[in-house]
């Protein structure tokens, strides 16, 4: 079942095109990573899903309705980012009480246990928290609300590595306990890729890939071997980047256009290795022929 469906969705801010003709359908009850470079349009897209922004063109349907200004969306969805604002007058404890009143599946005990674990004092006010503590509190708030659609926009920004690792596991455990749709955007793809089921890769306002994680990773491979042996092979392939050091060439190529078996390659001294999801993202979204080295030449 689809929880979100977009057709030809575009969003412009003045003359700037943030999103261009996005068509995608997201299944319910999956953990989906929304990945892209800075300024790719991830947050704009998530804000449209949440009903906070109106598309300029095209349609977006969430729970089969237009999400903009929609109470049905608002009561079944939670959107967590670092701009989430709470009352300046309430203690964290009181903020949790209000959450419990609004969200029917709210887990108050769990909120207390997680915040105690993170060492956050509930008598404080939200604006008194450090950047990392505030991110932790917001993420806990998003998890314990147990909304059918949970959108986490860069939820781990400002959190230290230990707490990030803990909370990726917390997201997974909450998902196992109470399956729901998680959309998570992050710059730390490597840290969260094991808990993802799918990835939606956005670049320059368009969707350039939407696939199960393994399939996504398998689309590029790294070839390594003697330069003469590789040269002929590479001339017929889609090469993303290549480097030669002392007669050995390594190249990242499109795996779908590699028609030679691994056994045959091995006899020529060429090895095939897989990449991590974040490496695949990097090569799919970097401009071909552009390299940081080039500006120093």
């Amino acid at each position, binding site marked *: 079942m689809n929880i979100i469906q977009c057709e030809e969705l575009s969003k412009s801010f003045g003359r700037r095109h943030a999103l261009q003709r996005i068509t995608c359908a997201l299944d319910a009850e999956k953990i989906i990573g929304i990945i892209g470079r800075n300024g790719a349009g991830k947050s704009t897209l998530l804000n449209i899903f949440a009903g906070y922004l109106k598309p300029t063109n095209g349609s977006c349907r969430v729970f089969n309705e237009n999400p903009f200004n929609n109470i049905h969306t608002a009561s079944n969805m939670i959107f967590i980012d670092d701009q989430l604002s709470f009352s300046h007058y309430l203690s964290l404890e009181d903020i949790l009480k209000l959450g419990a009143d609004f969200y029917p599946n709210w887990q108050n005990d769990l909120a207390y246990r997680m915040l105690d674990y993170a060492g956050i004092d509930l008598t404080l006010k939200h604006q008194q928290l450090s950047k990392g503590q505030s991110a932790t509190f917001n993420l806990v708030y998003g998890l314990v609300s147990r909304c059918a659609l949970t959108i986490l926009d860069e939820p781990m920004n400002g959190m230290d590595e230990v707490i990030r690792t803990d909370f990726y596991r917390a997201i997974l455990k909450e998902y196992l306990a109470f399956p729901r749709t998680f959309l998570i955007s992050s710059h730390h793809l490597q840290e969260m890729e094991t*808990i993802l089921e799918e990835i939606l890769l956005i670049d320059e306002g368009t969707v350039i890939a939407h696939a199960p994680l393994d399939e996504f990773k398998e689309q590029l491979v790294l070839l390594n071997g003697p330069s003469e042996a590789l040269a002929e092979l590479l001339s017929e392939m889609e090469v993303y980047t290549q480097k030669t050091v002392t007669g050995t060439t390594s190249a990242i190529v499109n795996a779908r256009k590699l028609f030679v078996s691994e056994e045959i390659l091995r*006899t020529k001294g060429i090895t095939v290795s897989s990449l991590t999801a974040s490496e695949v993202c990097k090569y799919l979204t970097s401009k071909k022929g552009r390299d940081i080295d080039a500006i120093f030449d």
Partner: protein
Amino acid sequence: MHVHLDGTAPIYIQIAEWLQHEIIADRLQTDEKVYSQYQLAEIFNINPATAGKGLTILLEEQLLYKKRGLGMFVASDAKERILLKRRNEILTKMAQEIVLEAKRLLVSDEELLVLIRKTQEGLA
């Protein structure tokens, strides 16, 4: 229980291999119920769909069988079939790699055989 995954192979393949390893080591025996995809997700800190893909590989090779509503169980000849397959596929591939590496390092055939024999004696 916490098991660490760090191979370069896709995670679902690593899960399938781990389960086969458990069967070879008799930690999962014939007709015993295997972990569900949700238990595997919890153990390895991975998405349950990925764990499910690992289980499906074993199911398709008929190393596991399904009982409706009860889960998956170890097939009676699973252990022998895994051992046979490993001998045929993995050991052959490893031997290929050793021979190629020996060639690159200019190790003669006799030297390589001596090395293997010595290694065997060392482990015996």
